[in-house]
């Protein structure tokens, strides 16, 4: 194992912002910011639909604000359509059945010391690591 591309300061700063965003959603709306649920409910459920869609709109505005303030955003994504389709399907099915993703389980759930979320986070990091081990990056 070699450590490469480690960006501790920006990672920690971004993380603190994510935690603060989750806190705002919690104290004002009384809800946890699990993005898979917010996205899925935003389309399929009438409950809190506008709130959900506005949260998603905010997710899109965030990086736009960052670019407008003169920063460059790096984002490299695979060009393989089969990988994109399989990945998208698995992320959708998995977060629906497992009731959460990196934000809901990984951030909010672990913050609440939820045994379910800790288990889920260990599970998805483990299968993610094994997948990268097999398929490479």
């Amino acid at each position: 194992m070699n450590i490469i591309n480690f960006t501790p300061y920006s990672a920690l700063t971004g993380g603190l912002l994510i935690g603060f965003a989750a806190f705002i959603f919690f104290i004002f709306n009384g809800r946890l910011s699990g993005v898979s649920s917010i996205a899925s409910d935003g389309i399929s459920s009438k409950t809190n639909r506008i709130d959900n869609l506005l949260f998603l709109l905010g997710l899109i505005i965030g990086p736009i604000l960052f670019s407008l303030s003169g920063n460059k955003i790096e984002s490299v994504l695979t060009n393989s359509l089969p990988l994109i389709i399989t990945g998208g399907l698995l992320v959708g099915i998995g977060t629906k059945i497992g009731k959460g993703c990196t934000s809901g389980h990984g951030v909010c759930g672990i913050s609440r010391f939820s045994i379910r979320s800790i288990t889920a986070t260990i599970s998805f990091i483990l299968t993610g690591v094994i997948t990268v081990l097999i398929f490479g990056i």
Partner: protein
Amino acid sequence: MTKLSSLISGTIFGLGLTISGMVNPQKVLGFLNIFDDWDPSLMLVMVGAILIFSPLHFTFKRKSRPIFAKKFILPSKKYIDKNLIVGASLFGIGWGLVGLCPGPAISAISFLNINVYFFILFMFVGFYLGNFIQNGK
């Protein structure tokens, strides 16, 4: 008023994902590539978010209700079940194949990459399929 706090929270969340580099699938895959060239950044993103959200949410949860909503909405399930582990594991495989999870996928909409749109489309198909697998509807 929950509309305003949803938008603000989503925007800060999106900024956090951007600043931390989590909107870059390559960086996420770098974190999962633990046995080769490892980029530990994602771990610090989670640590940062939990450091803020955990104590603040425990402090404010004691209040009788959120500022703009009637009550706090928290997950009712307390125990680990098969769906949680199967779902989280499938999610991890999709995450490891592409390097995108729901939050960053939606934040990446403004990058105008057609593959991001395919990913999101199939993620929503996955939400639908997951719901069908679980509830038969």
